[in-house]
């Protein structure tokens, strides 16, 4: 409300920058969010019949007369079942590690959180390594039960099983925080009033977790609906894989595949919009907040009944085994040679799946020996894999950085113009991709930009290497809403008076932003960068939708790694390299999460204290006095 005096000098330049910023923002929003998606929507109703006349409802008629509803139903079925299974597993892992007194809870927690460091295609291939027809567990089981169906791990149940454990990461993060926020005094009060432990759990603890659970349920439903890697790799006909298949199909093969793909994307978008609007409405009603001024830390509850206690322990450790087995197997077998992997028995330790190459010699049908040069290659020695890593690394880093820059600038504008309509519009624009499924955005890009579009310098962005620009744009757009929510939250931490203080001390708007505001939000911005990079580095859905030989991402490389394993003597250790890839992803994700939640979360006081501690240790080791003492 207050009309503050602007800086007299450079006012016109500032205005010019504002106009330039608004034009650029409008160009990006319309050009890369609205127009391509609108084009997809239009394409549903612009199908031409055999006579060349537009038949607006042809696809819709086709939808109801053909097999298309089954894809929608399959996706909805998967999403509905996931809600149940993910919540059961997710709630139990949080209760087992945070609420009930279970022996070895710290170890269990580490096991349950492994999905944080590997997910998507890496996790699915990890599960395949264990359970598919040639998987370790399947092979061991087949030896014990020779009559068993080796193809048991495929289709709906395989997808449900894999995604159940893959999707508990959010429970591990958010539900854990929610349960830690409960005031222990309320539990004690309930016990004091005569409630038994399970009564307390259901009547006192669970109701406070309901808002978080509701959000998690909606997010799980959307994840199930938009599932891509698990259905694709484990063979389940759901919406997303079908959209990708149709996008790659032509009118010569089947009836209007593009329009059908567009219709499926729009159906997915409608589901997402309805669910997110419901979630938003529910969130606005507010959460249960602790009214306690002297909050007590939650204490673990002992399960008094010995039978229940034993059952809870058994359940906890069975889950632990399910979570940990793929991880352990992948790590162990990534250090095994191809023969050991093929025979599912351990032999000597080797780094060949990571570094270096080896030739492979085999006997041909005519009895002659053939040597295939470099048929065995490590993760960092295989051109295709290194190419995938390099491309994903560059594209993810650029997109993650772009996202942060755009969001920081827009949020800074929003906070400077808190009550203006313009800032509300800017915020809504950045949240827009949240309403659209990733597949709709990517599919729209793939179709719309597969032409010379005037506003991108009349270039075809889906053509050859240009697709990399398109993927970077898609990565950026898709990550904007998450970045906005996180960075906006960080900006709330900036006291308005800090800006006033800096201005009073003579700092310009730019200096105030760079030296006062940015350092405050920088840990959050870097965290968003790291988390987005982490997610994009092994991203599968978008890479699969673009399906381009010039844009083969790391996840696509991992997926295709074993396709030609051993054929004609080539690519002998593909499975081992895939294991090594998953280990590499776990290490990268682990480091990023450590940097974000460990190092990045430290404030200046903690950093200074650490520096002092380091100084003392070095001084003790070297026998020199610390700088501070010298100065004194």
């Amino acid at each position, binding site marked *: 409300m207050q009309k503050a005096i602007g800086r007299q000098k450079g006012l016109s330049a500032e205005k010019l920058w504002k106009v330039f910023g608004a034009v650029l923002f409008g160009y990006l929003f319309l050009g890369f969010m609205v127009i391509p998606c609108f084009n997809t929507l239009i394409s549903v109703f612009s199908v031409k019949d055999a006579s060349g006349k537009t038949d607006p409802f042809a696809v819709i008629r086709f939808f109801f007369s053909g097999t298309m509803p089954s894809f929608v139903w399959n996706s909805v079925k998967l999403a509905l079942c996931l809600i149940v299974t993910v919540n059961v597993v997710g709630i139990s892992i949080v209760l087992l590690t945070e609420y009930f007194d279970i022996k070895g809870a710290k170890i269990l927690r580490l096991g349950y959180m492994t999905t944080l460091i590997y997910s998507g295609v890496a996790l699915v291939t990890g599960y395949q390594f264990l359970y598919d027809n040639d998987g370790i567990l399947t092979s061991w089981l087949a030896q014990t039960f020779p009559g068993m169906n080796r193809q048991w791990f495929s289709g709906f149940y395989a997808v449900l099983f894999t995604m159940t454990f893959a999707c508990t990461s959010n429970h591990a993060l958010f539900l854990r925080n929610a349960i830690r926020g409960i005031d222990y005094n309320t539990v004690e009060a309930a016990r004091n009033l005569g409630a038994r432990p399970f009564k307390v759990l259901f009547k006192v603890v669970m109701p406070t977790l309901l808002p978080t659970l509701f959000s998690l349920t909606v997010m799980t439903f959307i994840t199930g609906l938009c599932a891509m890697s698990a259905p694709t790799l484990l063979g389940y006909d759901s919406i997303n894989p079908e959209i990708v298949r149709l996008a790659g199909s032509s009118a010569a093969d089947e009836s209007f595949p593009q329009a059908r793909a567009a219709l499926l994307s729009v159906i997915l978008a409608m589901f997402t919009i309805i669910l997110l609007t419901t979630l938003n409405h529910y969130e606005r009603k507010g959460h249960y907040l602790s009214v306690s001024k002297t909050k007590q830390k939650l204490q673990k509850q002992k399960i008094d009944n010995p039978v229940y206690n034993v059952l809870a322990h058994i359940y906890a450790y069975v889950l632990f085994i399910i979570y940990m087995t793929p991880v352990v197997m992948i790590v162990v077998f990534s250090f095994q040679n191809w023969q050991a992997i093929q025979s599912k028995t351990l032999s000597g330790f080797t780094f060949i799946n990571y570094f270096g190459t080896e030739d492979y010699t085999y006997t041909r049908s005519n009895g002659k020996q053939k040597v295939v040069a470099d048929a065995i290659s490590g993760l960092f020695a295989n051109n295709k894999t290194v190419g995938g890593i390099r491309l994903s690394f560059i594209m993810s880093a650029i997109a993650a950085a772009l996202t942060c820059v755009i969001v920081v600038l827009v949020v800074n504008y929003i906070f400077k113009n808190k009550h203006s309509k313009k800032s509300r519009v800017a915020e809504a624009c950045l949240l827009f991709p949240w309403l659209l499924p990733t597949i709709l955005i990517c599919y729209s890009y793939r179709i719309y930009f597969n032409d010379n579009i005037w506003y991108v310098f009349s270039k075809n962005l889906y053509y050859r290497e240009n697709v990399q620009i398109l993927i970077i744009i898609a990565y950026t757009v898709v990550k904007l809403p998450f970045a906005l929510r996180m960075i906006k939250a960080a900006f709330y931490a900036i006291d308005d008076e800090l800006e*006033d203080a800096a201005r009073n001390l003579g700092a310009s708007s730019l200096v105030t932003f760079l030296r006062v505001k940015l*350092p405050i939000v920088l840990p959050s911005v870097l965290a968003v960068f790291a988390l987005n990079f982490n997610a994009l580095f092994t991203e599968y859905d978008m890479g699969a939708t673009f399906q381009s030989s010039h844009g083969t991402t790391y996840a696509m490389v991992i997926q295709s790694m074993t396709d030609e394993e051993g054929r004609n003597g080539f690519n002998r250790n593909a499975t081992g390299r895939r294991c090594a890839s998953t280990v590499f992803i776990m290490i990268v994700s682990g480091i990023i999460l450590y940097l974000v939640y460990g190092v990045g979360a430290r404030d200046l006081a903690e950093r200074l204290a650490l520096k002092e501690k380091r100084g003392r240790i070095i001084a003790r080791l070297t026998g020199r006095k610390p700088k501070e003492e010298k100065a004194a």
Partner: protein
Amino acid sequence: MIRLDDIVVRFGDFEALHNINVHVKEGEFFTFLGPSGCGKTTTLRTITGFIEPVSGTVKMKGKDITHVPIEKRAIGIVFQSYALFPTMTVHDNIAFGLKIKKLPKQEIENRVQEIARKVELSQEQLKKAVAQLSGGQQQRVAIARALVTEPDIICMDEPLSNLDAKLRVQLRNELKNMQREFGITTIYVTHDQEEALTLSDRIAVFNKGYIEQIGTPNEVYNHSATEFVANFIGDINPIEGDILGKMALNPNQHHFIRLERVTVNHEERPGECRLQGVIESAEYYGLYIKYSIRCMGQRLKVIEKNDGIRIYEAGQEVVVGIAPGDIMSYPV
């Protein structure tokens, strides 16, 4: 030193300040006192340059600074939250303004060291993050940061409001001592009357965008210009009903008396009105005792020094004394 003439500030249709006229003298500790939303912070922000008045002028040392940018006004500010930059050390916080002015490194260092010595911040504290300091130490950093650029005046916006009662009293004294030592003109904003009375050379009492009275603490307390000032500063008893008639006070005016001016069982003073009363309750504060006395159908609050001898119980009959000279009367 600083002069506000006919300052009017509007936020949309709402007029926050109506013709404000203030003259702060050099070296003076001047306080803007008033309840929330009365316009005191708006006036301060007009002086510092964060708000542009619709009309009127702000002059400093005779020079019109109404439209001078914030950073060129040579006014130091200590904010309510202190607004210390959390990502910088104490040293860097203090040096910030000097670095912006692009002073030579050595000079910056010298000035930081000098001001740190004056506000009693140690070398150890200079290296710390601001979050590692106590509330009192943070206040010193905020003052040092505001003073190091050698401003002509310093403005403080409720700098003690976030502190607990004991620390507030302690820092209040430190603040006054520092101001005396530096001899700098200070404008201080507060809603705490006790703070205003103890710290200030002069006080401007604000109400609904107007200044009700400007005067020394003694003037605003003992000779409150308006009913609002009398009500806002200190505690008062309204004189109503039968007491009005007994004291022959003008019924067309409002009459008040401060709590400490009413006596209980004291020797009669010349011209004093003596009334019979009954103690309703007694609140023990240690240094003094606050009585509620029913007197001619009216409840009077009275503060008596705790001398350990004259202590009255509820239900006890007493004689209440009111001197006509202590009555403050205002038009209705």
